[in-house]
């Protein structure tokens, strides 16, 4: 099993955010395993994604729907398009199983989403559960905990 250094792990998280900021969504989707989940809990410290509401709890099919929808000609709420910006703190390695090829990273972030003249700031922590597949890092779970996850939001259009 290929072992990944702390720098390589951090670089992976930075590169993922860059794909989102550059709106290279197909390449971004390729970072996820086929059984991956993208989870944004609604409650602080939420443990249950199924019997409690979340802001997002999506498998790869639903993420694919989002990505293809963003490219659609009749996606009226993206005319004009949103743009986004991630500012990440250095990830901390919460867990590393070099032999099993799995890693958990926690990254504090500020995320900006803009559309028209409006700009909205979100802040929180992203947790990446990474696995090694065919020698490369892949995301099995990306969990995004907003500091104000239970607040009333306007539309969140892109991906944190």
């Amino acid at each position, binding site marked *: 099993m290929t072992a990944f250094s702390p720098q390589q792990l951090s670089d992976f998280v930075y590169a993922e955010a860059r794909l989102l900021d550059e709106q290279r969504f197909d390449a971004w989707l390729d970072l996820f395993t086929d059984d991956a989940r993208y989870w*944004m809990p609604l409650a602080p410290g939420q443990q249950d994604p199924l019997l409690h509401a979340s*802001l997002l709890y999506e498998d790869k099919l639903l993420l694919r729907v989002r990505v293809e929808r963003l490219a659609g000609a009749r996606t009226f709420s993206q005319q004009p398009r949103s743009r986004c910006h991630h500012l990440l703190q250095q990830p901390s390695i919460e867990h590393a199983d070099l032999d099993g090829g799995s890693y958990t990273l926690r990254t504090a972030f500020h995320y900006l989403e803009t559309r028209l003249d409006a700009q909205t700031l979100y802040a929180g922590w992203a947790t990446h559960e990474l696995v090694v597949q065919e020698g490369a890092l892949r995301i099995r779970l990306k969990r995004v905990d907003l500091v104000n996850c239970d607040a009333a*939001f306007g539309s969140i259009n892109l991906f944190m």
Partner: protein
Amino acid sequence: MNIMNKYRNRPDAVRALVRDTEVHKDLFIDAELFELEMEHLFANTWVYVGHASQVPKAGDYITATVGAQPLVMVRHGDGSVKLLYNRCPHKGTQVVGEACGHAGKFFRCPYHAWTFRTDGSLLSVPLKKGYEGTGFESCEASRGMAAVGAVQVYRDFVFCRLAPQGVGFDEFFGASLSTLDNMVERSPEGKLEVAGGVLRYMHHCNWKMLVDNQTDTCHPMVAHESSAGTAVRVWKEAPAGTPKPMAVELFAPFVNPYEFFENMGIRVWDNGHGHTGVADSIHAAYSPVPGYWEQMVAAYGEARASQILGEVRHNTVYFPNIMVKGPIQTLRRFVPIAADRTLVESWTFRLVGAPDLLLERTLMYNRLINAPTSVVGHDDLEVYERAQQGLHARGRDWVNVGRLYDPAERGQASVGADGTSTNGTSELQMRNQYRAWARYMDTTEAVE
């Protein structure tokens, strides 16, 4: 500057805003009309506050807003549900600060420690001697936290009428309560619990745009083509034999053709209530949940269980500002904040005694359709917000609600209550709402 009131103390001007097939744009953009709605419409009608399962034990409370009024709903010691204005009678401080909690036997104001029983009555005042001989007993403050005009708990759904006098609960809702009945009866134990948290989505548009949208069956295939249509398309690319995911089952009916929505029917009741989905609906073809049918048959017998689950009502509007989906156990509340600002709360219920998978499906539906992250919700909000801006345009002053208008519908207390229904793409329910709007905005009626 125009210092004349355009609508205040001018009931004729307000009434003239609602025509048979159109309503004036000021209903959506005028700040004075919004104030009048808060003062009259939301005081004269029965407005949903919360569910009794949110306050199971004596002393449990939630806060809620009815119109512009901050309220606290609390379980009293005798088991009844009390509704109090969240305002200390002393200096006006909101006594309760949390969205929900447990007060114990009394509320205590954080400012000067005045305490109140859970029926609002004044329990104690520190240094009370200071009020001796001041006429305190005859002051408003000595009467404690004020209660709202009237409260009715219907099968655990708590409604209130802020005005002390006015239309009775049964008269106001009439046979429309059958949608709440059906949602309750979908539990093998005949019991619902609020479960799974609440999604809160801020909208920069008028609250009535959301209410209109609930029975607008000509928009899904247009506004939601990008989301539901894409979901169907992506699903088609899946390898043959892959089981149809729950999410696809929930999304797909949004892009059913017009004919489907025409055939599903619409039914309205007096006072602004009504529902789409009489004969069929987007919730009619969900996969069976293992074990549930057997539970329902054991509880109700086969014939009754079949009747309960055969009700596929789509969206039931309870005028003025909630919508209920019985078959998927959700309740949406459109909380008016300003003429151009509305908080949309989407609540979900557990069918007590039923398999967890039903709640899981309800929560998935709510997340996919009603969350601030929802690809369906995004496009709805986009069209509302464009309307909120567009309505300021000169040259056109009216919003059309005339689709499939029939002059005979005006005099009827209810349409379709006998089981018949009309074409599901009719804007009948919108017209029904606006007739009720004009009735309950009537400032000449007795309102305190």
